[in-house]
């Protein structure tokens, strides 16, 4: 079976400085990989590399079958989902309007918005503006979006930081559903315990290099 992600001797430089070096990484369908590392070790850079939004400076690789050094990546991006540090919501729109915007751009039916708002527990709060909503509420909208778009590769960058238990469980449910659909998940966190409990394999980023932590 072809891996969902395959990086070989990949390196990324930003601002002329190397952030990641000689990264070898592979993710199989149905696998949850965890990446741990201290602040500034390059975890977010690695996640952005996996989204294909960042290009490698050296090495080779593929994400969902697309060569990461070519424009093939444009075709696979709709199959990649990410929850990053900051929710990508438009402050002046309501939570519902933000979700409708995403649904329309994804080419999905608007009728699916209300049922998924109910699933994530925001059916009664969705008319609040994003800038008047809590961090947890905005995170739930991101989860709602990913529940609808069903990405094959799910990337979680400190996704559960600052969330209450029910929101964390929602993200776990999203992760489990992605695996059940035959996709793969990469989780980045400082929380080693959580990674150990959730992941099939945990790797550590140190000095820009990825090593197995187990």
């Amino acid at each position, binding site marked *: 079976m072809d891996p969902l992600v395959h990086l070989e001797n990949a390196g990324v430089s930003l601002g002329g400085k190397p952030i990641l070096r000689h990264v070898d990484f592979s993710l199989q369908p149905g696998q949850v990989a965890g990446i741990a590392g201290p602040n500034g070790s390059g975890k977010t850079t690695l996640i952005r590399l996996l*989204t294909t939004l*960042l*290009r490698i400076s050296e090495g080779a690789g593929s994400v969902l079958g697309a060569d990461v050094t070519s424009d093939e990546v444009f075709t696979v991006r709709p199959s990649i*989902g990410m929850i990053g540090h900051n929710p*990508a919501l438009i402050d002046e729109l309501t939570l519902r309007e933000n979700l409708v915007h995403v649904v329309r*751009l*994804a*080419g999905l039916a608007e009728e699916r918005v209300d049922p998924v708002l109910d699933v994530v527990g925001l059916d009664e709060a969705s008319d609040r503006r994003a800038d008047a909503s809590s961090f947890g509420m905005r995170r739930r909208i991101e989860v709602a979006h990913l529940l609808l778009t069903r990405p094959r590769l799910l990337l979680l960058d400190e996704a559960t930081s600052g969330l209450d238990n029910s929101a964390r469980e929602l993200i776990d449910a999203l992760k489990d559903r992605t695996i059940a659909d035959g996709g793969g998940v990469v989780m980045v966190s400082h929380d080693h315990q959580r990674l150990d409990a959730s992941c099939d394999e945990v790797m550590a980023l140190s000095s820009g290099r990825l090593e197995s932590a187990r």
Partner: protein
Amino acid sequence: MSFWNQSLEIARVDLRVERRLGDTLRIVLPFAVVALMVFPLSLGIELATISRIGPAVFWALGILFGMQVALRLSAADTQERRDLHALLGVDPAARFVGRVLSGGVLMLAFLVVLFIAMVLIYGPTLPSGSWSTVLLGTVLFSIGLTELGTLAGEITAGLRNRTALASLIVAPLALPLVIGASQSLEALSRGAGILPWVLLMLATDLALAVIGVGMARPLEEATR
């Protein structure tokens, strides 16, 4: 979602945000009207001259304040939102077109109100056919300036001094638009044809559209 639907959706959301924020019509426009009043007061010139220079002052302020309108929309774009659009498979060219659509509508509304204010404050003698000429000029001017502003906004995205830098990029390159728009009215008052000026603005708009669409993908890469 098709290219045009993506563009329209981006334009729709931009205009909805602007309707709620109201910066263009509630802040930039009044500021521009104040600037209209500052000119004759600071120059200390007689009424006949004031009424003659009115249209020229309008176009000069149109470009200076219009730049702010054009840059505002891309200024509100965060890196997270750009990433989200990219991961949703939004064509970068569709983003450009959508921004130009929403910016163009805002710019047009801004300029129409500013023109009316200029007519009231400066009392110019306008030849017959002026309003349709001004409207045509304003539409082409708005499209071109918005295209330039969107390009400049993207080129300077995320940079510390982006407002000043983007303005420096836009202002000199917008000269064909200012010349075309102002000279079309001038030509009308001399009884001459406006076609050369309209074609000049059209050529500028088309050239910028081709660049904007053609450079959309490299620009998206450049803002990472």
